[in-house]
């Protein structure tokens, strides 16, 4: 099945009635949203809210119980290969082979994503992410922060039109994290790509995200700009909003 509205006109991603039920437990409950190109959206929620399951369904790693995901106009279940060539992701739940050098790992993924001249592409992305001096090192010999940047380099190797990030700066020191956020902002502005980012770092969300999808118990309870959320809840920071939503009962949310 091809893209319904043409690959260039379609939103970066679209979830329609996305639902995941494990046994009797509903992990994700009928989510519907669109991600516009050139926009960074944060997916927020406490542990167990359904963020990782949502991202896994968008990647095609987990099959929805109901609903559908379209990436760049392609149905991820039916046309996954076409979609996956134009997206990428980074997550602390996956690693790159530790015994391979950084250069080799990046070259392998450049080939998998059909990037021309894999060696040059690996060196270019390594330079952009300040990894050039580590290219010859085994990936397993890097610090957690360096490994996170290598994971990000892998995620950017194909200049994806949609980038899914799960805790992108989780193991970075404040200086490295700040630098990575700047690099992500600049990359998005330059390429017009869309970013969907799950994060527990509210400062990061305030800085990077133009839109927040707040999840609770598998549902989206808020979909707004960060400034609108601060206004709605009468709070000074997103962290306070997050705590309010996470600790409130369902009745309060509905009210």
């Amino acid at each position, binding site marked *: 099945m091809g893209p319904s509205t043409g690959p260039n006109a379609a939103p970066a991603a679209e979830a329609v009635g996305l639902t*995941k039920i*494990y046994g009797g437990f509903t*992990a994700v409950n009928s989510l519907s949203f669109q991600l516009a190109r050139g926009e960074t959206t944060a997916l927020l929620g406490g542990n167990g809210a359904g963020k*990782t*399951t949502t991202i*896994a369904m968008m*990647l*095609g*790693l*987990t*099959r929805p119980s109901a609903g559908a995901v379209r990436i760049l106009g392609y149905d991820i279940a039916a046309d996954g*290969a076409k979609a*996956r*060539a134009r997206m*990428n*992701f980074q*997550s602390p*739940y*996956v*690693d*790159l*082979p*530790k*015994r*391979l050098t950084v250069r*080799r790992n990046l*070259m*392998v*993924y450049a*080939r*998998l*994503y*059909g990037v021309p001249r894999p060696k040059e592409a690996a060196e270019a992305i390594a330079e952009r992410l300040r990894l050039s001096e580590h290219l010859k090192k085994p990936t397993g010999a890097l610090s957690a922060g360096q490994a996170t940047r290598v994971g990000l380099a*892998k995620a950017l190797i194909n200049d994806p039109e949609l980038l899914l990030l799960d805790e992108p700066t989780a193991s970075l020191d404040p200086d490295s994290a700040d630098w990575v956020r700047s690099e992500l902002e600049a990359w998005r502005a330059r390429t017009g790509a869309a970013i969907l980012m799950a994060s527990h770092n509210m400062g990061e969300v305030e800085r990077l995200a133009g839109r927040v999808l707040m999840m609770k118990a598998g549902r989206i309870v808020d979909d707004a700009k960060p400034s609108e959320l601060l206004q709605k809840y009468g709070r000074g920071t997103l962290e306070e909003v997050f705590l309010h939503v996470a600790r409130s009962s369902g009745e309060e949310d509905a009210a």
Partner: protein
Amino acid sequence: MSALNRIYALIERQWVLIGGSWPRLVDLFYWPLVQISVWGLIQMHVFAEVQSPGTVVLAAVLGAVLLWDVTWRSQLGLSLAYMEEIWSRNLGNLLVSPLSPAELISSLMAVSVMKTFIAMIPAVLVAAVFFGFNLFTVGLALPLFVLNLVAFGWSISLVAAGLVTRYGQGAQDMPWALMFGITPFCAVYYPVEVLPDLLQPVAMALPPAHIFEGLRALINEGALEFAALGWAFALNVVWLGGGVLLYAWMLRSARARGALTQIGE
């Protein structure tokens, strides 16, 4: 072309791992060397004791040892390359890349062939130099035997890979357990008729039993049994097809249960 590029990327990744680590290289041919040495020495001792030349029987046993190791190496070559992706928590990265499951399996099959050849060359040389058995005397049937045994090894590893994908690392001993469990029925070192009557149909459903019956006939009587080869090919189509289907089913089931996000943890 892009599919070939993706397959090549994974083959090259495995090749670099093997070439860059002497323990991995040694591990490949260590066990086949031990196997052929032990069996060669046992046979020499037995025939010295009974003061019988026994050359033909010796050849049949050593041929079986070498060819059974081909099955083991091809099975472990695929299974361990797959497990490597799980142990390094890289499978998730691969499954969300443009690499299709068919391309992943194709690359692992190629890696399996590569590893099998590296593993078997020293053992074949030792058999020829120290025990006077030249595997190539089997003649033109040899590639047909090897092809069938490699294909059977793949079918077992696809079953094991499927179980590990679906049930996680708790099932990681499957590659070894399945092969050990199936060995008595494959009639590697003895004819099928040695098995109890009830178990003979089990053996006849396994491609290796036909290959080893064919090997014994070829070495003992100098006759290539085309019927045995035909059965082996036909059964391998069923086994390999079954392995592919089971892997695809297990992968689908793992996606449905959300198991792929936890694999490797």
